[in-house]
């Protein structure tokens, strides 16, 4: 008999226009000591399954059909009290974001002891013993002292360990981990995944690992359930799913994941999600508006040069002074980008890679150092009108497709704004037609121009964002984590689009990301950053094949391996 047995589970959310079926007739089982990965893109309903099992469906969601059984006993219809006695005691849960999962006002000790004592009734003293042991178990050094601390005194990774400890408090039989590592850096992610795996084996508990990250699945799960729009499209062993996917969606999914072990020039068959064929716009640069403007550069020449760049942020201080804190975000960074190439900057959060982008675009002013773009000193104030216009050739595609578009402007206006502001089009109507062309160029329907951003998905928004960048007729395009907020299939489309545009428009790209496999697919040359410094830079493949710096090496080792051809 399976530890967890889900049969024909259907979860529904009544919404304004009828009923939304989040989970549609899903059946699956979890055995003790087994890790079942549930993978899928946003809106696939993977998290909903976990919440349904826990009885924590956010209102107005409800289980509309099917059964959930824990070791044979049905738990989908239990009353609140019974369900509560189950939570934590028999089913533990791990949330995505460790920063917000802990009560900031209670010490770790209190939160652990409360949970332990609540379930095991062992008394405070005993509970504290166990608490400390748990912390040690999840790999927190100096547990007896650290237990007295508050959550904010722990780093993200450490917090996630505490969260796991809390989930394990009452020695549950089943653990549901909902994107447990998504909020963490690669290096931490690896450690947490190892921890989860180990605990699973040692304690012989069953686990549902919900994630969108195929790499994580490949590394951790025994079996994989692939979800698409609430339906379970394929269920099988990890090797099989990744090696020989059967369902077309799975195939698309797999093919969309950037392989960590080799470079492919293009992602194939990423159109499962799309309905119909997008408008293919071919623009003749010799005749089109997009074509004119300042003359192009000969490829291979250095287009952007950054010399011993420094940036120090000061925070605090006010009208009456007060102590200001300093943060040296960028330390003595130098590199150059050749015309026509794609230069990558990779690094973990807080490594300063995004700051560099904002220094180049002039959103931040450098503390010291020089930035030259086609000879213009970007670190100084522009002197002439032409120089200002030349600087517009540096444009940017942002990370968050939701905050990077002004929600109160129509898409058409968003794209046309640069044209109007810079007066590069003869008339407003002309600007509007150009905007339409650009939208078509990024494969959006013609009526998109009239809609507001909220009408679009993340991927489409990213396309709009690109179109807006193009509206300034850029030569140099900075892509700051352009796909980290997107699902893999969408990511593949965007990456393809970028490659196409680069070829078509002869763009030079500065590609910033934390995602090594993606970097491998995109970049000709890569710089690795840590704590604001560039530790290593060399040809794209070289970084992966022959990493020089120890930090680079550890990154390469720790990144989740996703190698379909090896399976």
């Amino acid at each position, binding site marked *: 008999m399976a530890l967890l047995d889900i049969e024909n589970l259907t979860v529904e959310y009544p919404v304004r226009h009828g009923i939304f079926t989040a989970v549609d007739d899903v059946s699956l089982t979890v055995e003790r000591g087994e890790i079942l990965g549930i993978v899928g893109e946003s809106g696939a309903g993977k998290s909903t399954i976990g919440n349904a099992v826990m009885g924590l469906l956010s209102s107005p969601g409800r289980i509309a059909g099917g059964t959930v059984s824990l070791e044979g006993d049905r738990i989908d219809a239990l009353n609140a009290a019974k369900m509560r006695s189950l939570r934590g005691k028999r089913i533990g849960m791990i949330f995505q974001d460790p920063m917000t999962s802990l009560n900031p006002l209670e010490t770790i000790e209190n939160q652990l002891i409360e949970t332990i004592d609540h379930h095991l009734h062992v008394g405070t003293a005993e509970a504290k013993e166990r608490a400390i042991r748990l912390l040690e178990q999840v790999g927190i050094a100096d547990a007896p002292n650290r237990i007295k601390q508050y959550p904010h005194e722990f780093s993200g990774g450490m917090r996630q360990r505490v969260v796991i400890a809390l989930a394990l408090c009452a020695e549950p039989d089943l653990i549901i981990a909902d994107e447990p590592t998504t909020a963490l850096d690669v290096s931490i992610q690896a450690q947490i995944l190892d921890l989860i795996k180990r605990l699973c084996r040692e304690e012989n508990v069953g686990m549902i690992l919900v994630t969108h990250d195929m790499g994580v699945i490949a590394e951790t799960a025994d079996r994989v359930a692939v979800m698409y729009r609430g339906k379970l499209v394929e269920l099988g062993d990890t090797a099989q799913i990744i090696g020989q996917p059967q369902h077309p969606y799975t195939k698309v999914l797999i093919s969309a994941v950037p392989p960590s072990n080799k470079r492919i020039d293009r992602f194939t068959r990423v159109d499962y999600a799309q309905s119909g064929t997008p408008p293919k716009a071919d623009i003749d640069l010799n005749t089109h508006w997009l074509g004119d403007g300042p003359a192009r550069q000969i490829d291979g020449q250095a287009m952007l040069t950054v010399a011993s760049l420094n940036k120090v942020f000061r925070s605090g201080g006010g009208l009456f002074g007060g102590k200001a804190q300093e943060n040296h975000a960028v330390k003595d960074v130098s590199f150059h980008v050749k015309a026509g190439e794609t230069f990558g900057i990779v690094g973990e959060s807080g490594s300063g890679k995004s700051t560099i982008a904002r220094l180049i675009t002039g959103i931040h002013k450098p503390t010291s150092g020089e930035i030259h773009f086609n000879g213009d000193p970007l670190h100084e104030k522009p002197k002439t009108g032409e120089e200002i216009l030349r600087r517009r050739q540096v444009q940017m595609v942002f990370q968050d497709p939701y905050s990077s578009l002004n929600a109160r*402007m129509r898409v058409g206006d968003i794209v046309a704004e640069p044209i109007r*502001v810079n007066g590069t089009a003869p008339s407003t109507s002309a600007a509007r037609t150009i905007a339409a062309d650009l939208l078509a160029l990024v494969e959006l329907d013609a009526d998109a121009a009239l809609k507001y951003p909220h009408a679009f998905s993340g991927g489409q928004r990213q396309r709009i964002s690109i179109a807006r960048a193009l509206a300034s007729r850029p030569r140099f395009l900075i892509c700051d984590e352009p796909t980290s907020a997107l699902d893999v299939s969408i990511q593949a489309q965007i990456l393809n689009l970028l490659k196409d545009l680069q070829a078509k428009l002869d763009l030079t790209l500065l590609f910033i990301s934390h995602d090594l496999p993606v970097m491998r697919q995109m970049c000709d040359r890569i710089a690795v950053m840590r704590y604001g410094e560039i530790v290593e830079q060399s040809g794209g493949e070289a970084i992966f094949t022959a990493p020089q710096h120890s930090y680079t090496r550890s990154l390469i080792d720790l990144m989740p391996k996703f190698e379909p051809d090896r399976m």
Partner: protein
Amino acid sequence: MTRMHAFLSSDFFWKFKRSPVAIVSFTVAMILILSAVFAPLIAPHDPFNPGSLNLMNGFSKPMEPNQFTGDTFWLGTDDQGRDVFSTILYGMRISLFVGVASVAFALVLGVSLGLLAAMAGGRTDAIIMRLADIQLSFPAILIAMLVFGIAKGITPVHLREEMAIWVLIISIGLSDWVQFARVVRGSAMVERQKEYVEAAILIGRGPIAIAVRHILPNIVASVLVIATISLALAIIAEATLSFLGVGAPPTQPSLGTLIRIGQGYLFSGEWWILFFPAGTLLALALSVNLLGDWLRNVLNPKLD
């Protein structure tokens, strides 16, 4: 599709249709506001025209003929023989005008200062916020009284009658701009960090254009909610000031002045002189408050 159609199919309108509270309070507010605006057409008498008053009509009971003149008034008359119903309509006009104008004043002042603080930052920000502190370290009602005192003092003697209302507006507005400034500053700070602002900078938008064209539209929800709630507050503040004797002149009474006059007769049997204006004030403020409350829930902006 037309804007109207867009609005009718919007979630906003959908939620509105499903909220009896919203519908009722909106209707009540509208009826009151319209009847105030069109008071001259609706009101049977013109209480602001002294010539039309007959003192002997004073203290007529509602719906009963006056013992001397035999005239009958729906809601009775006050001590001056003014038809209470008409006076309420005209009074509500003044209350609303004062309320709306002072909120508008506070809004313009607060929003611009708030935006300025958020965009400029540094010393400018610090100074503006200190200013707000000073303002806050002093109860609104006292501020209003102070300003009223000063303004009444510095306005040329022969202009006072006309000035009274404007002085009222400014004094209420001045005591109210801070919360606009604070909220706008707060939200603007948040918006300013968003990437669409960086994009705007990148394409060469100046700070003012960014503040007005990009940030402002995105924080309009908070402003709207505060404005609604402040409207109710302003109307009440006007009443309180009138009660303290620094409100609208008795010859052109606002609801507040009417209540102030009426409360003198609460125990002498002429209850209607107090209760009808008070009821109107309650209906007005309450419906506006309920609307604001509903807006807050629907638009759910982050008010500090």
